[in-house]
């Protein structure tokens, strides 16, 4: 059997292909499409079973599809014993549930094709999660399960509850998933390897970084596996159709976190905060989930809290890091997948046949549906840990793992505490298992029986098959044990090997089990007293309330940040950008200068004042005119100063050996000045002046600092240059091409395409300018009545503003429209009308000039 081909990538593709086919087929075949949907998971399960001998012999099938090899990202697959157990759960149980769906849904169900397609996509993603060997691929598949789960929980998208529950599940799992990704990157960077098997085989050195990385990864895993205090999304997600809950929230998705914990445990169980976190969180989850399961009236919610409890149990076992615990973990993993999905399916049938799943409205079902009751009884017995079901040897192994006599074990005190916690959790599990069977099937004298039909045989087949599997595996626990040992051998061994078995002799563990059963029976019999006790207990702080507080807090914080930063004022926004430049790269520059990390040119190594003393004259012109432009509040003098500044720049270019630039700049400056004159002529003669004061002084300070920062960086960067300019090759090229002006050659030949782009920019600007100016004139001809509205409109728009409108705006705007199209010059701008005569033509003239 060593030659089972590595079909896994093909099977994943099959999932995607079938998912695409399902929606169109659903219209024609109704719920029967689920039989087709069952094919890919069934294929995966069969493939996995065929590979069992090879995998247990220690040669896991591997495949690798490169994705971004340079970044360590690849679709690597590796199916070892742990992955095999998960594949059997995800795909094997998945195939059974898909078969059940074919009987559960009616042909008229809304969005049936979509539901089937997403479920298959989910099955494929989950298969990817448990088989991939690359941290990044794991993250991608992980989030795919979150997204498909979101769509499945929110299947009934017309219900607000469903949408809200779906969003809550998505926010919780993807939000913490991001933290997990950070943890992955930290782990991978520390180890220099993003393959999971490599990471576990050769974990990076311990230290605060490793601890932080592991905590981040664990937070992601805990949220996915609904651990306290992030468990709240799971009961909420019960709004999903029952088969979806049976699949996602019992067998597959919620096991993702447990799987990750178990996957990393062989490498990291000894590290940092791992043990403390895993043991305390797992224990708390186990007890809290069990306690809350006891008070549920809705059978499905009872199972949901039971699942929370069992997931805590699994986390505890998976993370403990001993061989016995790992053996128990595989046992409980498979047992839980079988019994919990069977129970969910039973609830689905009850709901389907009677229309309710409330304990207080169900009575007498045991008599009318004996087969179903028997199946549920078996599954519940497995959940409670009774022999000869698979739940029993698994729970025995779990108790054994924390017997203080077992070595290597946690310190004795911790072992006692964990053992006591597991025992309490088991008592609660027993009690709610009993409560489930009693609540669903017993005759209750106080409840009227509802008319109902027993389910059809194919419908009941799925839970019966799953329960039967619980029984068969319980009778032959060595079948599971092979798998468990295949995973557990990587962990530190105890003094003697431990195997899953029904009978270990009269051990202390058996005594504990007996005590647990006795206490559980007592708790069930005194359920009224337990109920009163639960009601008397103060309500614990609700984790869901915490979630809402968190969401509300994020919203409020976002609003307050928006309020502070979104002032709506352009100068403030630009100022923030400038300040950011100063704070981030500026602080780095200052730090570099202070620590000497940046070379500063000293005397003799390039420090000099000027190349040419004439620069002094030009620089004086530039500095004086630019500062004067700033201080000038009359428009025309400011324009003149700007113009002088431009010609000063041209002079500087001459000094710098750039005659082409000087020539171009002189032309451009002349044109710009002319255009500015034409526009300024219409505008008020002075700019509005900002009052002197702190805001203004602050602005001056900010701008000076930013300008200085840029100039200093420029100075240092140019000084740090080591390579010769790339343009040295152009000399020969120009000679070959027969040109002598290098700048011209670059513009017109070497980089001609860039120049074409430049021409396009200028042409676009010309078109835009023409349309801006001309559009206005047409308005006045065609749309005269609209001018009255136009006169009102600005008023409305500005009415909310703080600055009061300058008086007379309306009056200024009104007389505009009677003016003819030609008399654009007759603007009520308060300027000399005589000078306006050629205004319109001149504006267009400026366009033509370009």
């Amino acid at each position, binding site marked *: 059997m060593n030659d089972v081909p590595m079909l896994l990538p093909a099977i994943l593709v099959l999932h995607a292909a079938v998912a695409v086919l399902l929606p169109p087929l659903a219209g024609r075949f109704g719920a029967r499409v689920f039989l087709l949907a069952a094919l890919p998971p069934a294929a995966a399960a069969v493939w996995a079973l065929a590979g069992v001998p090879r995998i247990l012999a220690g040669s896991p099938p591997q495949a690798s599809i490169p994705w971004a090899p340079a970044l360590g990202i690849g679709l690597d697959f590796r199916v070892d014993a742990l992955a095999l157990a998960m594949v059997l759960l995800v795909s094997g149980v998945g195939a059974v549930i898909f078969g059940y769906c074919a009987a559960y849904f009616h042909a008229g169900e809304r969005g049936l094709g979509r539901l089937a397609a997403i479920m298959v996509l989910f099955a494929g993603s989950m298969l990817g999660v448990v088989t991939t060997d690359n941290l990044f691929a794991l993250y991608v598949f992980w989030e795919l399960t979150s997204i498909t789960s979101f769509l499945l929980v929110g299947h009934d998208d017309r219900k607000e509850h469903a949408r809200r529950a779906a969003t809550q599940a998505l926010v919780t799992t993807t939000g913490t998933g991001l933290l997990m990704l950070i943890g992955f990157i930290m782990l991978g960077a520390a180890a220099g390897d993003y393959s999971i098997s490599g990471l576990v085989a050769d974990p990076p050195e311990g230290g605060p970084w490793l601890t932080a990385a592991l905590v981040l990864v664990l937070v992601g895993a805990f949220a996915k596996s609904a651990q306290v205090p992030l468990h709240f999304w799971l009961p909420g997600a019960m709004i999903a159709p029952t088969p979806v809950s049976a699949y996602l929230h019992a067998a597959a998705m919620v096991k993702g976190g447990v799987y990750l914990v178990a996957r990393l445990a062989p490498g990291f169980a000894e590290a940092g905060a791992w043990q403390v976190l895993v043991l305390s969180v797992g224990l708390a989850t186990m007890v809290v989930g069990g306690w809350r399961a006891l008070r549920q009236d809705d059978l499905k919610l009872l199972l949901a809290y039971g699942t929370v409890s069992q997931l805590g149990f699994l986390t505890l076992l998976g993370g403990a890091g001993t061989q016995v615990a790992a053996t128990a973990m595989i046992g409980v993993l498979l047992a839980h997948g079988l019994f919990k999905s069977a129970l969910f399916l039973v609830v689905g049938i009850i709901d389907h046949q009677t229309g309710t799943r409330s304990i207080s409205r169900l009575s007498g079902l045991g008599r009318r549906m004996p087969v179903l009751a028997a199946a549920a009884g078996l599954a519940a017995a497995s959940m409670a840990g009774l022999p000869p079901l698979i739940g029993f040897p698994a729970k025995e192994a779990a108790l054994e793992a924390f017997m203080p006599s077992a070595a290597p074990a946690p310190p004795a005190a911790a072992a006692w505490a964990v053992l006591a916690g597991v025992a309490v959790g088991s008592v609660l599990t027993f009690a709610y298992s009993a409560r489930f069977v009693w609540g669903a099937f017993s005759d209750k004298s106080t409840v009227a029986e509802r008319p109902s039909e027993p389910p059809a045989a194919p419908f009941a087949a799925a839970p019966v098959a799953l329960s039967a599997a619980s029984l068969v595996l319980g009778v032959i626990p060595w079948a599971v044990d092979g798998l468990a040992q295949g995973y557990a051998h990587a962990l530190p061994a105890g003094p003697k090997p431990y195997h899953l078995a029904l009978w270990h002799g009269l051990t202390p563990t058996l005594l504990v089990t007996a005590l647990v059963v006795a206490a559980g029976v007592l708790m069930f019999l005194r359920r009224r007293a337990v109920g009163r006790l639960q009601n008397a207990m103060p309500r614990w702080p609700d984790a869901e309330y915490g979630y809402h507080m968190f969401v509300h807090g994020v919203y409020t914080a976002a609003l307050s940040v928006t309020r502070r930063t979104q002032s709506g004022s352009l100068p403030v926004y630009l100022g923030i950008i400038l300040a950011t430049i100063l704070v981030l790269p500026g602080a780095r520059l200052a730090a570099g200068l202070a620590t000497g990390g940046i070379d500063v040119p000293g005397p003799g190594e*390039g420090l000099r004042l000027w190349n040419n003393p004439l620069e002094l004259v030009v620089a004086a012109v530039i500095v004086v005119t630019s500062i004067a432009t700033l201080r000038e509040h009359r428009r025309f003098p400011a324009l003149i100063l700007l113009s002088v500044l431009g010609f000063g720049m041209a002079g500087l270019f001459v000094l710098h050996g750039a005659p082409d630039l000087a020539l171009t700049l002189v032309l451009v400056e002349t044109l710009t000045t002319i255009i500015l004159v034409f*526009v300024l002529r219409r505008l008020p003669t002075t*700019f509005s002046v900002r009052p002197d004061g702190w805001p203004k002084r602050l602005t001056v300070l900010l701008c000076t600092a930013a300008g200085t920062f840029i100039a200093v960086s420029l100075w240092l960067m140019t000084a740090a240059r080591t390579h010769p300019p790339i343009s040295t090759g152009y000399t020969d090229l120009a000679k070959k091409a027969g040109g002598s002006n290098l700048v011209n050659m670059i513009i017109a030949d070497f980089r001609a395409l860039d120049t074409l782009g430049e021409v396009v920019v*200028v042409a676009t600007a010309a078109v835009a300018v023409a349309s801006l100016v001309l559009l206005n004139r047409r308005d006045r001809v065609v749309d005269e009545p609209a001018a009255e509205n136009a006169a009102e409109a600005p008023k409305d728009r500005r009415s909310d*503003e703080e600055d009061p409108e300058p008086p007379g705006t309306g009056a200024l705007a009104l007389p505009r429209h009677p003016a003819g199209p030609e008399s654009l010059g007759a603007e009520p701008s308060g300027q000399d009308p005589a000078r306006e005569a050629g205004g319109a033509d001149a504006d267009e003239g400026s366009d033509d000039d370009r």
Partner: protein
Amino acid sequence: MTAPGLLMVAAVAVLYSTGFYLLLQRSLMRVVFGIVILGHAANLSLMLTDRAITLPPLLTGKEGAISDPLPQAMALTAIVITFGVTTFLLALAYRVWLGDANDEVPADLEDRRIGRLSEPEDQS
């Protein structure tokens, strides 16, 4: 190691500072002035990356060190683009003035409205 002359570096600092200051004004015309000055500042910065050799990049047969032509070509392009941007902004300023009878940049009212929200519009 060759660094540009400190005098020119100071000129760049002044140009950037005044350009930024004008950019932060409310009057659109001063904003346009600011962009013109920032254009000058950027062109001068480009020129300073040259090793500051003062012979024009012309192959006149005279062998010897010449200025780096690449920053010059880039500055030339930048000058023309700045011109295009400037005229476009001027046309915009003109339009704004036609509509509002002043050339000030008003505050964005939508931003203010968002800032005034205090309660989530939709809790779900």
